[in-house]
């Protein structure tokens, strides 16, 4: 099935059977080469002289065996530059991330930019009331199901936390909710400890069919985050052990905040970030040479007045996203960067500006995966309306990135000559043949002023909301077998009971 021009020409709700990743085109290198070089030098200097903390004895031992300088008591590792440069080269330049529907597998490193929903957003904006509240397991299922129907979304994170489940086993509830709500790839980011990692692997083996099947086509991936600045906790590292041994690809992430957990300059921010990621990738490749991984640079800044994340973000955020992708490309390591995530509190002008620019930054500086669609207040509130709006922006970017054809047919020589000066093209055959090639929005306000006023001045959000309801009313994701569902539920329960008993 070919992707249709525009998101709103003839709406079909038969579920997403194709994806719309952005194609990689000529990239705008936002950092000049000398800056990239300096950044790399700064990074190696940090890793060699400052090092990182690692809260796991096994991992410290591995680092020592590989030639890093280790202080076991202080849980500190310093990496010689040669070790870093040697190990990061082992990261594969391409690999696949599997989906329950193989047609929706992601081919990382193939020159496509895949979009995801956001993850771990504390609150959700209630679809009915618009009020902000905590997310639930049901919200997670619904949002995942909605995203399943949008071809602009290529994979999932965990949009909201299932706060109505016990926190110690929450990731497994989230896996259960998502696996039955989508046939696309799921990147499971809330598993950050080895115990939940084991549960995750068990559940995936049920769906894949066997350990070997899972290893051959991993249906989920994961990533672990450094705590800025420069600190790897033990549990995340040990989670990597469980997942890597099962064949689950694991990305390495850094989320420093300028002025708070990183210096107050772009250079300092990105140097710390790069050091954290390279330390993780180096460590991962020491422990599991050749294991699929990706570079996840999420550098952002603090609002000087509130101390919270900077909602009024602008040039630095955009630069950070584009530069992060550039650096990943420079190292030849697959990369995720941030996209969307406006700090606006409603889907207003500010949201349009921030999200629009961020999305097009992915056209101009592509990565392999980008996250994340669907939030407001800078990833603090999840909104289904916003997901549809972000998908609309993505659709514009996708169509723009395709470029335009220049051939005899599109050139319309004959039409131009035939029509001639001061006439018009409205009814020509050429116009009728090609008018539907033009992208048409399903979301933009296209009414005349008078109609719009008569309707009570509706907002594009109203059109987005309509589309959300349509999808939720009709979309059925790929179902799991009954016995699979039962087994998943059994595993979740078993883990929940096990840990509950321990706490008693």
């Amino acid at each position, binding site marked *: 099935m070919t992707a249709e021009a525009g998101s709103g020409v003839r709406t079909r709700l038969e579920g997403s059977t194709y994806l719309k990743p952005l194609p990689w085109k000529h990239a705008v290198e936002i950092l000049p080469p000398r800056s990239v070089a300096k950044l790399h030098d700064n990074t190696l200097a940090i890793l060699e002289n400052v090092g990182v903390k690692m809260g796991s004895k096994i991992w410290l031992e591995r680092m020592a065996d590989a030639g890093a300088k280790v202080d076991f008591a202080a849980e500190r590792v310093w990496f010689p530059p040669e070790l870093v440069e040697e190990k990061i080269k082992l990261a594969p330049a391409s690999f696949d991330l599997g989906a329950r529907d193989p047609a929706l597998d992601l081919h990382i490193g193939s020159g496509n930019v895949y979009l995801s929903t956001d993850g771990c957003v504390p609150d959700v904006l209630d679809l009915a009331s618009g009020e902000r509240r905590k997310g639930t397991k049901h919200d997670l299922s619904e949002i995942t199901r909605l995203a399943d129907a949008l071809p602009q979304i290529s994979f999932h994170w965990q949009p909201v936390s299932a706060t109505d489940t016990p926190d110690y086993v929450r990731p497994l509830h989230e896996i259960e909710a998502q696996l039955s709500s989508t046939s696309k790839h799921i990147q499971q980011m809330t598993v950050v400890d080895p115990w939940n990692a084991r549960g995750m692997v068990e559940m995936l083996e049920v769906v894949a069919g066997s350990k070997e099947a899972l290893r051959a086509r991993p249906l989920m991936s994961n990533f672990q985050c450094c705590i800025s600045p420069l600190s790897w906790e033990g549990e995340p590292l040990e989670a990597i052990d469980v997942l890597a041994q099962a064949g689950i690809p694991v990305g390495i992430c850094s989320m420093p905040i300028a002025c708070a957990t990183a210096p107050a300059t772009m250079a300092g921010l990105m140097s710390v970030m790069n050091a954290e990621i390279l330390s993780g990738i180096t460590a991962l490749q020491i422990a599991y040479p050749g294991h699929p991984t990706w570079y996840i640079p999420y550098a952002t800044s603090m609002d000087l007045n509130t101390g919270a994340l900077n909602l009024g973000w602008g040039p630095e955020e955009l630069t950070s996203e584009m530069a992060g992708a550039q650096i990943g490309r420079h190292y030849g390591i697959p990369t995720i960067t941030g996209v969307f995530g406006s700090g606006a509190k409603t889907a207003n002008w500010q949201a349009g500006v921030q999200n629009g620019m961020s999305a097009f930054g992915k056209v101009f500086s592509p990565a392999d995966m980008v996250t994340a669609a669907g939030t407001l207040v800078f990833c603090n509130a999840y909104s289904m309306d916003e997901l549809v709006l972000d998908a609309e922006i993505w659709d514009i970017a996708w169509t723009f990135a395709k470029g335009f054809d220049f051939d005899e047919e599109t050139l319309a020589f004959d039409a131009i000559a035939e029509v001639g000066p001061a006439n*018009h093209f*409205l*009814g020509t055959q050429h116009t*009728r043949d090609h008018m539907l090639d033009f992208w048409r929005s399903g979301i933009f306000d296209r009414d005349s*002023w008078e109609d719009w006023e008569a309707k009570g001045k509706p907002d594009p959000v109203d059109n987005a909301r309509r589309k959300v309801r349509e999808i939720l009313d009709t979309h059925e994701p790929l179902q799991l077998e009954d016995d699979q569902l039962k087994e998943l539920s059994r595993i979740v329960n078993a883990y929940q009971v096990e840990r509950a008993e321990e706490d008693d």
Partner: protein
Amino acid sequence: MADQQELEQAVKDGLMVANGPQATEATTALVEAGVDPKHILEKVMANAMMELGEKWKRGEVFLPEVVASAEVFKQCNAIVEPALLAAGTKEAGVRVIMCTVKGDLHDLGKNMVCAMMRTAGFEVTDLGKDTPTQKIIDAVKEIQPHIVGMSALLTTTVGQQQVVIKTLKKEGLRDSVHVMVGGAPVTQEWADEIKADGYAPSAPEAVNKAKELTGKA
């Protein structure tokens, strides 16, 4: 000769897909065969355009297709009209005169309105662009339209709409027509100010307004 039904279908089909040769050939054949030209115009041609209008409403055809069909309609009309005049048949349809005002050469909006009007069964005479006031007055006297529609794209030409309305009044013709205005700088406020009878911001809405003004369902 193919039978009448086949020819009428050919006219209809030709109009629906804007196949000029097919439609005009079949129209010519019908006229030459002596079929009542009023029947051809109203039951065949106008009906086809109205069906097209319904398709537009359902989103099955788009504006450029409507415009193309309207062009073919004009061609068929040119064949039927002489027969109509010869038969002395007075047209019972709702007549509309459209133009772009003096000093203004922009006619895209007008063209779209003309096309959409035809799909609603209106009989449209298009005076063209840069239309001097006198030409409009002469046409009103000759055709006795129900509606006079004027388009203007520039803030510097839109004033001509007021001039025409004043002139219609002076000539004692104002009360015999409904005046509609449109174009980028035109708003309901402007229409009210110059005492036009109707304003529409788009071609489809112009049709609705025209129907409202003439009491046509």
